[in-house]
């Protein structure tokens, strides 16, 4: 059963990239629709709404990050793919925070971004504040990322 550990770990890595990526893709897409609407009315707002559109995109990157660290540690990208089942499950668990928090916080942040785009459309002077509202949501994605990173870095040292 030695190889099943590897499978669990890979499932974790894939889930991180998968869920966080789905969340960001949908959120950035919806924010993009709102942004396009604003630019249709006032093209000079392009750079501002573009930044707001991109804000919920970071979850996907965090997911990619975790997936990549996990894959490089478990040897998908070269090296041996041998590990215990317990270790594999540990990797899977470590990937879950960014997978789920990434998915849901991207949705939430996407909604905040859309509202912020609306705010900039009405009053371009409020860009600084508009940027902060979606960024507040991102805090939780960052915290999840942190837990995932710390856990993954700690796993190789465990004797399980």
């Amino acid at each position, binding site marked *: 059963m030695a190889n099943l550990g590897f499978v669990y770990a890979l499932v974790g890595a894939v889930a991180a990239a998968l869920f966080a990526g789905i969340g960001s893709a949908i959120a950035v897409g919806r924010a993009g629709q709102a942004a396009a609407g604003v630019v249709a009315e006032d093209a000079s707002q392009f750079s501002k709404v573009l930044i707001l559109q991109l804000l919920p*995109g*970071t979850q996907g*990157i965090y997911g990619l990050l975790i997936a*990549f660290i996990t894959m490089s540690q478990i040897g998908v990208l070269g090296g041996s793919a041998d590990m215990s089942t317990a270790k594999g499950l540990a990797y899977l668990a470590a990937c879950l925070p960014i997978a789920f928090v990434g998915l849901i916080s991207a949705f939430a942040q996407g909604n905040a971004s859309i509202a912020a785009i609306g705010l900039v459309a009405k009053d371009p002077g409020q860009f*600084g504040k508009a*940027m902060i509202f979606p960024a507040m949501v*991102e805090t939780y994605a960052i915290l999840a990322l942190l837990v995932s990173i710390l856990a993954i870095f700690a796993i190789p040292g465990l004797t399980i």
Partner: protein
Amino acid sequence: MAVVPMKRVTIAALRKDRKKIMEFLQRRGVMELHNNIPEDEVFRKYDMSDGRQTFLRNRGRAEQALAVLDAYAPEKKGLLASFEGRKPITVEEYEKGIRERASTQELCTRILDLDKEYAELSAKIPREELEMSALEPWMSFDLPLNFSGTRHTSAFTGTLPGQQTQESIALQFEELEPDLPKDITILSSSPEQTCIFAVCEKQDSARMKEALRRMNFAAAPLSAEVPAQARKNLEKSIEDAKARREKVREKICELASGREKIKFLIDYLAMRAEKYDTISSLSQSSRVFFVEGYVPADSCAQLEQDLVSSYDVVFEAEDPAADEEVPVLLKNNGYAAPLESVIESYALPGRGEFDPSFVTSLFYYALFGLMLSDAAYGILMAAACAFVLIKFKNMEEGTRKTMKLFLYCGIATIICGFLFGSFFGDAVHVIGSTFFGKPEAGLKAIWFEPINDPIRMLAFCFLVGLIHLFTGLGCKLYMNIKNGQILDGIYDVVFWYMLVGGAVVYLLSMKMITDMFRLSFIFPPAVGKAAAVIAVIGAVGIVFTGGRESRNWGKRIAKGLYAVYGVTSYLSDLLSYSRLLALGLATSVISSLFNKMGSMFGGGLFGAIMFVIVFLIGHALNIAINALGAYVHTNRLQYVEFFGKFYEGGGRKFRPYKATTKYFKFKEDI
């Protein structure tokens, strides 16, 4: 570093000088106008909106003319043209522009007329082409289409529906007019229609007409010309129109040399319109008018001197009253000035607050650097900003400040990058081992590599956060002392310092915590105990003073307890700084990812080419996304964690009466 002190200025002058004085003030652009003098029998406001409307209408025409020029002869603009800023204009150019005003307006009219002509010609061409295609079926006919017959005959030229032959037509006549002498010629036939030429004797004309009508005959388009000739004429006319259209286009392109003049006119008219708008708000009697407003104290003396020496004016400057809402203008040294826009997009300092630009600048660049933390990215950013700053001397003030902001952020990023050993991620190592066979190659971190020791980096981030938060609290203390509320300072700041600082020191005397963060030091138990006592004193102090606005002691203590509960917000504030680690890791891990992907093709020429491609695309993507992330989250740490401790804002921006122009910068000394 400061909010610029303002003076409240009142100017009384003679109406005959009104135009000159108002233009002078507009060019100087140092006074925000506020007219509070109530209207009465002597002083009232004059409505100048008619004049303003005329200027705006003319400006609209000039803008249209400019749009026409841009459509026919687009201006060549570089990729970086948006950095260029408005062109400064000399006194001679300004006066020349005003002298040529009438001719420029004529120029606009001519351009608009030519554009109209072009549009008419453009509409004519497809119309005639349509006529030409309608003639196509009649080409074999060598008489004019309106040929109606000779002395003894009547002729009908036209179409029958559907594809017909001599026989089918004869068959139809058999039914309608069997014994009518006639001659039918089929000129052309297609599935839609058949063009015929029918001739009969003159006395049969009516019968023929009726028969044809019942066969759904439609007369040919009337034309006094033989179709072939008509087509030739139309061809010529179309060619002619095309040539004329081209000529009109050339003429418009020739007029494009007047573009600068038109731009000047647009700016000039905008300025005049603004002036009229302002004059409408002035209090005027039949001889005298008043201007009231705010002027920055440092420009006040010069303004007074210039006005008094040239005109008969009374100039009065006084300090604004304490409860007046004075507009806010920030002025900082070169290092902190770029942050004014960051402050402004949060809020300008309100009454009794100081300008936080400087204290923000102490952290802003460093936080950005910690989050991006790649020396190569920093070098690219700083170099790009420096290039733009040096190349475009005329840049608008706002753009210049933004560029400087990113220049300093880039420099901080370079420093952090070398501290943490990141140069395009681990590019030095990857290139060295893949292409030069030196796996030991690598950029040595000056301090340590966070990816190898994330806990240590996390501890460092919390330390940065603690310093940042305590600085914010310090600012509040400073503000309290400045406003003479020393007790408030003790209650709201010193107690918190004791509670949070004591708690942190106490935690650092616990082995569990120092082990967790792998710290090399631990406070001795005695220090821990002392810190705990201090923290408790702070907490008790907060319980008793946190709700001091309530008179009822029960309520007061309850509110105080709730205030102590606020210590959890310090915990979450502090945790928030873990984003420094997370974003820093994100940059370096993603760049390592791209390096690794690039090196997967192995060494050799092909490998090198693929590496360069992956490297360029990957790092361009990474720098864009992470620089954006670093910018957003630096702002967040400043706005939420830092400003949350002491800064409210609420000031109103200083908006001087000045020439709001689009293309040219009118310098003061005109």
